[in-house]
């Protein structure tokens, strides 16, 4: 039980650290995907199989594709690492942004009252999760749906180009 948790934690952290240190962006992306999969493994370990499979389906199946496509389409060459050291302004910005996120996370973790450990882990069926989502959390579900739809439409608008058909496009 604990050994499995330790193994998952090592996999998660190890692949995340390796992803930072790789010069090759594709390797970094693939290692990041390994991190997401080990997070799914952790959910499975914790007994939340629905979340685990959803994590696999969404992160390993979908988000990974977005990351890989983004890497392939934005880099001119796959091998050109960021050779020049980052300028000072960028470093300061990175530290500020990272520090802000870390601060918020730490404050949230410390601010949350630790619940007394339940005697047994609650075994929720998918049906119960669905009913919870559709009743108590229906508003947040709707908001998430709207945000995703807006993102989708925005992506289509950006991607669609008004190219007038040229002579070679004629059938």
């Amino acid at each position, binding site marked *: 039980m604990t050994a499995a948790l330790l193994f998952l934690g090592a996999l998660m952290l190890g692949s995340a650290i390796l992803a930072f240190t790789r010069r090759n962006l594709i390797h970094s992306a*693939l290692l990041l995907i390994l991190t997401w999969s080990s997070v799914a493994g952790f959910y499975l370990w914790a007994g939340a*199989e629905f979340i685990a*499979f959803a994590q696999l389906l969404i992160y*390993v199946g979908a988000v990974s*594709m977005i990351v890989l496509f983004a890497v392939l389409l934005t880099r001119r060459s796959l091998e050109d690492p960021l050779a020049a050291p980052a300028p000072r302004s960028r470093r300061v910005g990175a530290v500020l942004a990272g520090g802000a996120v870390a601060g918020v996370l730490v404050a949230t973790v410390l601010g949350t009252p630790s619940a007394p450990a339940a005697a047994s882990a609650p075994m929720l069926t*998918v049906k119960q999760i669905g009913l919870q989502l559709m009743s108590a959390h229906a508003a947040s579900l709707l908001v998430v749906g709207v945000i995703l739809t807006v993102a989708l439409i925005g992506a289509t608008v950006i991607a669609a180009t008004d190219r007038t058909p040229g002579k070679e496009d004629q059938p």
Partner: protein
Amino acid sequence: MSATLLSFYRSLLAGDSPALATEPFLERAPLELRDWFVQLLPAPLQWLVHSLISIAAILAIFGFFFAFLTIAERKLLGRLQNRLGPNRAGLPWAKNLKLFGLTQPFADAVKALTKEDIVPANADKLLHFLAPVVVCGFSLTTFAVLPFGREIIPVDLDAAVLYFFAAGSATELAIFMAGWSSRNKYSLLAAMRALAQLISYELPLLLSTVPVVLLAGTLSTREIVLAQGGWTFGVIPHWNILTPWGAAGFMIFLVSALAETNRSPFDLPEAESELIAGHLTEYSGFKYALFFMAEYFGMTALCGLGVTLFLGGWQAPCAFLEFIPSYAWFGAKLCLLILGLIWIRGTLLRLRIDQLTRLSWKFLVPLALINLANAAFWSLTADLPLPGRIVRWLVALALVAIPFVTLGRRLSAGLAPRTYRYAP
């Protein structure tokens, strides 16, 4: 792994399901055999062996199924194209015995194993090696949640349908790894094309399964099959395909499954007669065979899911045919569905990439969404008297058929009929 899982296995060992004892002998024979073997071992090993046997059974059965599927496909395609197909491979120690060439798959396996494995000098060696392993491994894990019989289901998960698609989604990753690690422009481009196809058809595939989940009220494959049990007048089964939304869902599912598994007419990622081999250009020997194997495993698993969701799983078609064991029915339906796919491969022409994506986004996705609303209508009008039921059936049929016809007409406007001009 975890304590809950362990206790789950223990409970399995303790008495299996209580209903098992009352089943007919043929129905429980495989499970009795497994339990008898497990009992022979020392107690601490039992839960491990219990699951290892399931894994070994899946590997053996679907390994041989794959082997004979290839020869069946080659023979059937040969027949469809008015030739004989492979019929020479016999047994090495009996030269006169031809056996209709049934030993061909073993000859193919030996050939694939002994071929030289060429890795490009500049390839990313690790990823190049990992890609076939990942694709084969994950396509095998999808078999775990299929209910092969009344009591035969390797892992009975609560979120089984979700698990199936989660395990299947790693194929995309493997295709990318294969294309990118080959260090070959054509491989990379072909991998991108293949990914575009897979992503496009994932959506209708998932959407076509949602109505089934909606009506059954569960994601568990075992319960979805149980929900399709029963017969009207003892001869008309209550399978999902015999309802308007089920028929439409099954058609969408079948087309998307064809595309997801790179089957003809959607086999353009590795169009044999046009491209070299797409993202598999730089693969040879057993690695290529592994990709090939994974494709067939994926096809078999998707057909198995189609049987489970729409064709009643292991349920017999008529009440008086129930004496035949349930796993035989599952196998028969699976074989029929796969033979249908081979027939389609021998009949239809390959699509172009723009036609392929257009078919998905402009036709299948809207139809699947409409079908979802149709299924919601069906579930809201569940308990009606008989005249109401007939009206409901007709309304649901109209809800499927009218969008299908209008959308199809609009999309194919100006495309037909084709005019052929011949040289004088």
